[in-house]
């Protein structure tokens, strides 16, 4: 196997699993250390730079970082990364002085943003300080997009949205809220240098079943209903409510219904409970509020009696897998199930909708009605028009919208400067030794043995009584510190220097997780089998040295390395060193704001 090339910034980036898994590549261990240090404002700014909405995401993120977390591979649960982010946001204090100022001079370029959701606001955040003249349009009366309209306030208080949307609105941008853009052609005719479309996936799918039209008054589209609740247009719902769908929107719908008079709320899904799209913790939250989730029931009809919806019938199915492992839902042949209800909330998916984009402006759509968008540059086939967030590649989640926004901002900036947008800026990378003394490191390398700490919740009766009462109370400082200590500091890398190694085996002997081996070289597949512990996790790289004096190589399986630094502490010659790896995703115009 070839020796590992540490000059490739992606090698160590992959080792920081959380940061690598985060679409915006937030330097997670870096901010977690700052939280442990009670430097909340610093932790917040690191987040703000990368993911723009730390307070929002600290409550609502889909957290792709957590399944990736190395801690989850050496014990039961990953670090509660998402809720630690919220701790930074909750305790940051006044940080207005750290925010970038509106540009003193404008650069004369005008950019229009359609939709004021997370993707658009990210583009605006990145471009406004560079002097762009930015106008953001949204059909709603306030900015935030789905963050404001679809996420219930008991999960995300209004003040958090106001603050973080406000940071961006305060960068000297023009907001035109309450305005629906109905023609891209005429918007472009206004002479904008570029247009960013961040309109999300605004249309909730309906369910055309018998009785749909007759019962229409009590059948609601989930995201529209949530939006109406959010803006105060709806304040109550029937006593018995069926929520159709197994995603996070369905979870929001059922929990909202519980707070608006729904005493008997059920979630009913076609698939099995395990295959539901909703995040496991959102399912837990729903069930904790006495909402049963009934599975393997396919909706068959809405039952309407005397002009009023009285219930729904469902066909019972079971999962069968064909030879290729594909799942089919096959009727069990049992009698249909009838479930009584007063209202139905349909949360079976959402779609993009671009009726306002003319077909003759050089902007191509694919056969599914989605714009043809470059996955790297986010440019459409109409060079002046860029897409991001759900509008680009269909429904994902907030952190993806932010990641898209950063990349689109780079493209728009390069486009306006007349540069080649296909050429992407390299990340900023540094590797710094953390050695302070003989066995002293500038990070806390003593591994905590604690299990994941649960976030305290508000008393259930109290929470259900007030739709605006936030259910999760967040970690207090003590819990936050203890949880932060569970972080393994995977960004502090084990760096090996071949010429210094005397092959004394001290690192092999001390390594608590058997990840270091000195062995004869071989092909990777073979090498993986004859290490101190076999390296079965193929998603994790082997760190392989050049040949040593005895002709052997050092091979380290990155998979379960605790980054405890004991190899470096035990190394008599300093061949191992613990070095902090910073991977800084470059943003538009270099760095839009400093840490």
């Amino acid at each position, binding site marked *: 196997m070839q020796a590992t090339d540490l000059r490739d910034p992606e090698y160590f980036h992959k080792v920081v699993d959380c940061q690598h898994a985060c679409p915006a590549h937030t330097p997670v261990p870096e901010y977690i250390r700052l939280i442990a240090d009670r430097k909340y404002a610093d932790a917040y700014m690191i987040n703000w730079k990368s993911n723009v909405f730390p307070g929002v995401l600290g409550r609502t993120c889909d957290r792709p970082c957590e399944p990736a977390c190395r801690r989850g*591979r050496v014990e039961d649960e990953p670090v509660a990364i998402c809720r630690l982010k919220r701790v930074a946001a909750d305790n940051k204090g006044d940080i207005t002085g750290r925010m970038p100022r509106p540009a003193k001079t404008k650069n004369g370029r005008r950019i229009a943003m359609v939709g004021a959701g997370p993707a658009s606001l990210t583009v605006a955040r990145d471009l406004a300080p560079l002097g762009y003249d930015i106008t953001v349009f949204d059909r709603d009366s306030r900015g935030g997009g789905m963050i404001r309209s679809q996420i219930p306030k008991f999960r995300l208080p209004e003040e958090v949205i106001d603050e973080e949307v406000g940071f961006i609105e305060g960068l000297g941008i023009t907001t035109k809220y309450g305005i629906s853009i109905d023609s891209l052609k005429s918007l472009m005719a206004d002479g904008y240098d570029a247009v960013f479309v961040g309109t999300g996936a605004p249309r909730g799918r309906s369910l055309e079943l018998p009785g749909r039209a007759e019962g229409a008054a009590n059948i609601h589209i989930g995201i529209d209903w949530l939006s109406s609740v959010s803006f105060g247009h709806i304040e109550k719902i029937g006593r018995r409510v069926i929520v159709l769908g197994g995603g996070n929107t369905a979870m929001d719908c059922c929990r909202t219904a519980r707070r608006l008079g729904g005493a008997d709320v059920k979630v009913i899904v076609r698939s099995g409970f395990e295959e539901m799209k909703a995040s496991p913790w959102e399912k837990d939250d729903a069930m904790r509020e006495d909402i049963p989730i009934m599975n393997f029931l396919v909706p068959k009809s809405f039952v309407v009696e005397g002009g009023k919806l009285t219930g729904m019938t469902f066909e019972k199915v079971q999962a069968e897998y064909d030879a290729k492992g594909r799942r089919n839902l096959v009727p069990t042949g049992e009698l249909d199930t009838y479930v009584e209800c007063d209202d139905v909330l349909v949360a079976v998916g959402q779609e993009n909708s671009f009726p306002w984009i003319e077909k003759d402006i050089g902007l191509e759509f694919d056969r599914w009605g989605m714009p043809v968008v470059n996955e790297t540059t986010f440019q459409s086939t109409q060079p002046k028009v860029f897409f991001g967030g759900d509008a680009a590649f269909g429904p994902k989640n907030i952190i993806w919208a932010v990641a898209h926004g950063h990349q689109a901002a780079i493209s728009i900036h390069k486009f306006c400067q007349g540069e080649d947008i296909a050429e992407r800026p390299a990340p900023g990378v540094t590797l710094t030794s953390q050695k302070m003394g003989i066995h002293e490191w500038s990070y806390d390398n003593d591994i905590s043995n604690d299990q994941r700490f649960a976030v305290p919740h508000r008393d259930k009766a109290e929470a259900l009584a007030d739709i605006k009462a936030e259910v999760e109370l967040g970690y207090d400082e003590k819990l936050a510190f203890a949880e932060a200590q569970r972080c393994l500091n995977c960004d502090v890398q084990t760096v090996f220097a071949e010429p210094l190694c005397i092959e004394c*085996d*001290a690192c*092999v*002997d*001390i390594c608590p997780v*058997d990840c270091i081996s000195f062995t004869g070289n071989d092909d990777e597949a073979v090498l993986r089998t004859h290490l101190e512990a076999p390296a079965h996790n193929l998603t994790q790289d082997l760190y392989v040295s050049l040949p040593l004096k005895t002709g052997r190589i050092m091979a380290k399986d990155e998979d379960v390395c605790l980054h405890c630094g004991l190899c470096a502490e035990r190394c008599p010659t300093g061949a191992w060193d613990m070095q902090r790896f910073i991977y800084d995703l470059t943003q538009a115009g270099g760095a839009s704001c400093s840490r």
Partner: protein
Amino acid sequence: MTFLLKPKLHHPNLPTNALGLTRRDYEGSVSTLCAGCGHDSISAAIVHACFEMSLQPHRIAKMSGIGCSSKTPTYFLGASHGFNSVHGRMPSVLTGANLANKDLIYLGVSGDGDSASIGLGQFAHSIRRGVNMVYIVENNGVYGLTKGQFSATADRGAKSKRGVMNSDEAIDMVSMAMQLGATFVARSFSGDKAQLVPLIQAAISHQGAAFIDCISPCVAFNNHEGSTKSFDYVRAHNDAVNSLDVITGRDEIIVDYAPGTLEMVKQHDGSVLALRKLAADYDVHDRIAAQAWLSGRHAKGEIATGLLYVDLDPVDLHASLRTVDTPLNELDETVLCPGAAMLDRINASLR
């Protein structure tokens, strides 16, 4: 020196042995020796050996004297018995313990100072009495705790870290052990666990005085050019006579060596030593020839390692003393004081 405890978290696929224990269960407290010390590797090899043999930790007694090496029993087998004796007196204490309870496995861990200087007499007599034990000398050729003066095993002509030449002749403990009647003699190197671990296992299963001289470089004071106990020197001059696999009763015997190069040696406890010859004309059962061989290699500046001598019919101290089968510490008062009638009978038999 580190004071951080080794984290409890371990590899998710860490294997367990017949007792359901993992290798980590055989570790001790965290070492306070210098980083990179050869002794830590020997500790790790002992941990490996005991884990793989599925030994019950509470049936092992670790005995040591004074010195860097004698500190190490703290760093392995944390759940075993231990006794840290006066300087050079480990062999006597071990002999006493062995007499009292012959059912335990005795692991005597000592160093070149503890065994070749202050404890030379104790070493000699425990070997010649044939105490059933594993006697490991962690041999680095210097007094590490007092900043690296030459010890009695340092080779004549070796240079100290400051460049001073050693003018005294070295004590070769392997030759001494053979001459004194050890029934199992081996030499190994802390930097070669593939060799050391099976040797420790073979020594544990040997039912007599088993001696292992393990060269263990002192990274702080004896790992420089001019040293004959450095990693580089030992690697360059290591001349292994054989390599060894230990097959305990439970394992199936699989032999995949070329015919004629492999010798299966069955020990009294049922374990089999699969010895692969590296030096074709070396006979591991011939003590006289082995001693000659060792002298020859030594004269050429080579360090002979491997299993150097094994007697398949060892006689241990208890056999010589014809003690009862029950360990002495388990004999109760009625057995030990059989009464006046018995005393009379014994006295009568002596008249």
